[in-house]
């Protein structure tokens, strides 16, 4: 049945443009980190644009490059025809809803809705959606004129798509522009988060006719931006999406041809509602029957790796696509500098020196370590037989103190006969949190006076 449909299409429609006989329509690197494998989706057609079935892995070659110049052959690890029949496709239907879509197919004005291009387009889409029953395909719908509007995001609920088609209404005068490029670009961005095979089918009856260019003022949605073919291709490739185009009616957009070819898609011509229905179906059949290849890549560093496929028996190459292959570490040095190894023994040497550092300050001579109420610490060596601690500038150790507190003095007295130091005070001071007026000091005793903490240190 598939062959019959394809043959009918090939006779009924004239394909105005053919891409290469082999085209890479999708690339998947999600398992590369685990098994070093990269997956490709490919379409293979003959010179009439008809799908070729039954191609074997032996007939194919996958080439990879880190610079897009020198390519190396890669081993094909797995090969399967028609992989999307099991996994399903994400189809974004993008419909031109400019003023001219409300004319007849031959471009005449009409008051009868059933005679308009938009009616034919909607009817063909309904046929496509109904044909998806029982499959794993998902669909979404957007339209464009002066504005781009997403009616339904891609989902498996196809009834929502059918219902949303009723929301397409004839645009007013200011809404009748054809923002074709902006719509393709926006649509490519919107389907980016969908997993698996992604395609956009854009139907239009004319060329890109942007509001800002014609009116010479900012578009209400896209401002002054004018989008090029290159931008569209880049966005579609980045999102691993393939663009298919359908020219329906009298107008043609010249740049659309380049975009569909570069992204691995096809450009179709349709003249009737029946043509449209068959084309939509043909596109779906093409994607469902895509070939799937897994190949082994290497670990050579490159932010991007470029890939192309070759149909050996016909010596036909696909266009080149790429995938991101950067690592968490970024770009390695071209050559390892062996002198840098010195950093390792140097680190251990510094570790050794660190281990020799002093972590304590045992006293060699009698001293007082004074921490005043502000937290500042000073060390005073005890040189005289009497060391007066107080708040006066004339004292041996002057404490910075809070004037609101009652002030006190203490004296550290050295007894040469007994070789001991004693703290003496008229009022009580605290030594090790005990009130005293006189007390022989031992190394490590803590004297509290006027909000200051004084540690008596001495060689033990």
């Amino acid at each position, binding site marked *: 049945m598939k062959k019959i449909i394809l043959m009918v299409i090939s006779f009924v429609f004239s394909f105005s443009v053919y891409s290469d006989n082999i085209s890479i329509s999708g690339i998947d690197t999600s398992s590369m980190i685990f098994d070093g494998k990269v997956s490709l989706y490919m379409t293979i057609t003959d010179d009439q644009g008809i799908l070729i079935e039954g191609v074997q892995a032996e007939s194919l070659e996958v080439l990879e490059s880190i610079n897009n110049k020198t390519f190396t052959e890669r081993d094909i690890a797995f090969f399967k025809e028609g992989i999307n029949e099991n996994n399903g496709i994400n189809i974004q239907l993008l419909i031109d809803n400019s003023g001219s879509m409300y004319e007849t197919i031959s471009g005449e004005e009409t008051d009868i809705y059933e005679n308009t291009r938009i009616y034919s387009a909607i009817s063909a889409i309904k046929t496509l959606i109904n044909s998806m029953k029982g499959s794993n395909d998902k669909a979404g719908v957007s339209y464009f004129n002066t504005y781009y509007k997403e009616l339904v995001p891609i989902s498996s609920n196809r009834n929502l798509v059918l219902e949303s088609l009723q929301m397409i209404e004839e645009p007013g005068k200011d809404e009748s522009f054809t923002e074709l490029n902006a719509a393709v670009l926006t649509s490519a961005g919107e389907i*980016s988060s969908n997993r698996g095979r992604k395609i956009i089918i854009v139907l239009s009856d004319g060329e890109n006719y942007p509001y800002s260019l014609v009116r010479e003022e900012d578009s209400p949605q896209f401002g002054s931006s004018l989008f090029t073919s290159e931008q569209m291709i880049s966005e579609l490739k980045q999102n691993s999406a393939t663009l298919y185009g359908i020219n329906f009616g009298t107008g043609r957009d010249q740049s659309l041809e380049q975009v569909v070819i570069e992204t691995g898609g096809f450009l179709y011509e349709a003249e009737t509602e029946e043509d449209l229905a068959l084309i939509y179906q043909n596109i779906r059949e093409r994607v469902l029957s895509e070939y799937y290849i897994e190949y082994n890549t290497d670990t050579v560093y490159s932010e991007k790796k470029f890939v192309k496929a070759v149909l050996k028996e016909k010596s036909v190459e696909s266009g080149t696509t790429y995938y991101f292959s950067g690592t968490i570490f970024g770009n390695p040095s071209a050559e390892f500098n062996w002198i840098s190894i010195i950093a390792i023994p140097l680190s251990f040497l510094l570790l050794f020196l660190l281990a020799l550092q002093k972590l304590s300050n045992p006293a060699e001579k009698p001293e007082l370590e004074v921490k005043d109420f502000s937290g500042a610490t000073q060390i005073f060596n005890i040189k005289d037989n009497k060391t007066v601690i107080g708040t006066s500038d004339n004292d041996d150790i002057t404490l910075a103190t809070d004037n609101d507190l009652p002030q006190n003095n203490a004296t550290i007295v050295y007894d040469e006969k007994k070789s001991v130091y004693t703290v003496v005070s008229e009022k009580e001071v605290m030594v090790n949190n005990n009130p005293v007026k006189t007390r022989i000091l031992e190394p490590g005793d803590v004297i509290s006076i006027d909000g200051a903490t004084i540690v008596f240190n001495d060689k033990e």
Partner: protein
Amino acid sequence: MNKINKNTIMITLGFLGGLSSWPLLELVLSKQSLFSNYLVFFMTATLIPGLFMGLFMGCGEGLLNKSTSRTIKGAVLGLVIGAIGGILGGFIGQLLLVGIIQYFPDTDMGLILLARTIGWALVGICVGVSEGIRSRSLRKMMLGASGGFLGGAMGGFVLELLSRNESSGTYLRLAGLLLMGTMISVFYTFFDKKYSFGILRVLNGSQAGKEYRINQKKMDLGSGNRTIIFSDYDQMSDKEIQLNVEKGVITVIDDKVENNLYVNEKATVKTQLKYGDVIKAGSVKLLLEAE
């Protein structure tokens, strides 16, 4: 010679971890094409910073206690846990990166940087948590993980930013690794200090002036190798006293038969402490201070 404190030691160790990991990481990166697949390459490359940073930072407690055996044990444990963290963190970061590229192919560099930063943050967690595992302290593990996460994320973010430069990537990667190691230890130290219950300052003897941070809910002091070590003081048993912290209240306990504990010169077996208290255990005198 002036004494250095714990913060300086830990930050220096983090710096040395980054420094020592640089040449081997560069060697692995330069030989990327020799690896049979990306998985082995990532596991090898991400293991190195985790391993060296874990090793050096694992030495910290041993150096502070001047204990060679504890230094070696901490280094080995830090090395093992850091290496595991390196593999896990780098691997998860790369998985996130692949996932982002795969399912958000139009993403900007910001999201890619985020994925890689998360990976380095995981490396930091494992480096930071190793000392908590060694000392079997859940609290220390949490503090280490917090510090490691922030330090790893911050250092890793800068490492990734610097690695983007193709012309002088190797030296920028060195700067990134130094910063990452330093940041892990800076944040580790920051959390260690912020959530410490207080400081024990040694008042006498060979360790006079040395400070020990109370950062665990149970800490032992004595001459044994699993305690805060006072082996060079008289009258110190393997485990002379214990400090317990419950709801922020620090209690000192001496449950030995031969009780030798004094708080503010009063003999005790168990006392709730307040800042400013002077503790004498065996021959060592300690002052409890607020952080």
